[in-house]
């Protein structure tokens, strides 16, 4: 029995088992996640969907090691995040997870190259060729000629590409995107999603949280949350991707 569990845990990059998250707001308690279990393996492309208040953002915070569950076990890359200190969580985020946000979250008045180097400044040991790594990632997202541009000099789509390069620079196992196309027009959205598909094809695990069905269609697996529980979890063809190709 225990052998089976170990094997499963080793293969699953993200593993949630009986996870609940309870917030206390005044004298009310809000059960944002209620006994959720799920596994995401290496190389998957998952879309997490659900209306606001469904618990999908809470789930994303847990997968991103930004928060820990109230009860249950959530493991990332084989480590139970409840057992980690806040510094150990920071190291886990630095090495294992790349974040992409709806509002890009780029630093003001900072050139693209330095934006992308940011996670490497916190890495230990700090890579010797941080600038080279950042340069390569910017080239990978198609911004090789925008190294010195500040966010204000870039379009929305370009800013999100810088953010994706930043998420990738530390060579993480998981790319975690929270509404990555929420601030973009539909054409740019499609380009960004295509970039995610290409990255996934190269082997990186991608988890996208979104409420847009169009965006979710790019993923190969869709998990739908409602009232803190998973109501749907099924593989899908990802036809949007092929349609775009």
């Amino acid at each position, binding site marked *: 029995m225990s052998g089976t569990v170990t094997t499963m845990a080793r293969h699953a990059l993200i593993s949630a088992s009986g996870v609940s998250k309870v917030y206390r707001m005044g004298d009310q308690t809000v059960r944002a996640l209620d006994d959720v279990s799920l596994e995401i393996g290496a190389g998957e492309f998952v879309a997490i969907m659900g209306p606001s208040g469904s618990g999908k953002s809470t789930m994303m915070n847990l997968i991103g090691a*930004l928060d820990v569950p109230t009860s249950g076990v959530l493991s990332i890359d084989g480590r139970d995040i409840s057992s980690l200190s806040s510094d150990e969580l920071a190291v886990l985020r630095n090495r294992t997870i790349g974040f992409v946000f709806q509002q890009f979250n780029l630093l003001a008045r900072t050139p693209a190259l330095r934006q992308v180097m940011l996670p490497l400044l916190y890495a230990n040991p700090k890579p010797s060729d941080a600038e080279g790594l950042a340069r390569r990632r910017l080239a990978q997202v198609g911004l090789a000629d925008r190294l010195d541009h500040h966010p204000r000099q870039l379009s929305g789509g370009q800013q999100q590409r810088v953010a994706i390069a930043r998420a990738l620079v530390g060579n993480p196992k998981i790319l975690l995107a929270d509404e990555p196309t929420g601030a973009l027009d539909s054409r740019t959205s499609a380009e960004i999603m295509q970039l995610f598909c290409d990255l996934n094809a190269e082997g990186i695990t991608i988890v996208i949280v979104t409420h847009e069905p169009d965006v979710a269609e790019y993923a190969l697996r869709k998990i739908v949350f409602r009232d803190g529980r998973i109501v749907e979890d099924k593989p899908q063809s990802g036809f949007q991707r092929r349609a775009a190709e």
Partner: protein
Amino acid sequence: MSILDSLSVALSALRTNLLRSVLTTLGIIIGVGSVIVMVAVGSGATSEIDRQIASLGSNMLVVYPGASRVAGRSAGAGTRLPLAERDLQAIREKVPRVMAISGYLQGNAPVVFGNMNWTTQIGGVHDQYLTVRDWPLAEGREMTSQEVSTGARVAVLGSTVAEKLFGAGDPIGMDFRITNVPFKVIGVLTAKGQSSFGRDQDDIIFVPITAARGRIVGRSQVVNDQVGQIYVKLEPGASLEEAQEEMETVLRQRRRIRPGTEDDFNVRNLAEFLKARTAALSTMGWLLGATSAISLVVGGIGIMNIMLVSVTERTREIGLRMAVGGRRRDILTQFLVEAVSLSLLGGVIGIVIGVGGAAIVAISAEWPILINAEAVMVAMAAAAMTGIVFGFFPARRAALLNPIDALRSE
């Protein structure tokens, strides 16, 4: 994250709000500036006192005649009894540890050499006078005790007089006249410069006191061997206070002053007098010290305030840094480094202003400009400490932010 990386982040953040940064450091600027000025004024004043005491002659007491007069007391003849050779003898013999002693009989007289003439101060002195005053000769020789006892007409010139009468020529051995009495130059003194009262100390001629008496300085009605003032130099390490008491006792006995009556002479310690006069300057130093302490506190609060604003403005950035792997201590370090950079920026500007201020004070008080490296270092350390102390609270607040809330903030 290394300190160097933190520093580069901090500097670019400060550059972004350059005007705000500089204004914030105003308190630190004033604090550090006044530390520099305070120390410079303090050490300038001390060195000035030392210089004046040295030019006066160290370990020296002066006896003045008849200075003590109480209102209501009759000004009888005995109350203005001048000091005489016998008083000087008594001090030389009865007061222990006297190294050198001389009378000083002062007058003003016209002096003539060829077609040059000049009016100057004449000092009738004993042979030990230059020893008492620690006043070295530039050339020639001092007068001998024999010249003093015989009333030889020889003169030692102050450098100003030597220049006025003889110009570039060599005055040694030359004959000149003081109020029509011929004198021979035997020595020229080194320049002493201005006294603490602004008088040119080198505008003077010294002659044997016996030669001055009657010829240059009027003869006293009461005693025929008056010596004016008596300058006494004590051996190194001798207590001036004890010597002063001894001298008073000896003079009271010799001048037959009954117990309970006022002295008809006055023994003064000029060095003490000068120190008291410059005490006002050290009070100014203390005031500046208080100013700098208050300014550093006010400056520190300014820095704390602006750092709190900065943390609030950059909450999202802090959240992002945490998300990409910044640990709490990285965030803490970053904001501490920023606060310290801010206070050191103020420190550097303060030093520049302080050095300028010290120079202005030094020039107007005619002191040497004394900026000591320790004061600069202490001031910088004080600025850095201010940054650490007052930057800690905002930095800690940043470090303890919840990354989720921070990322969500507007």
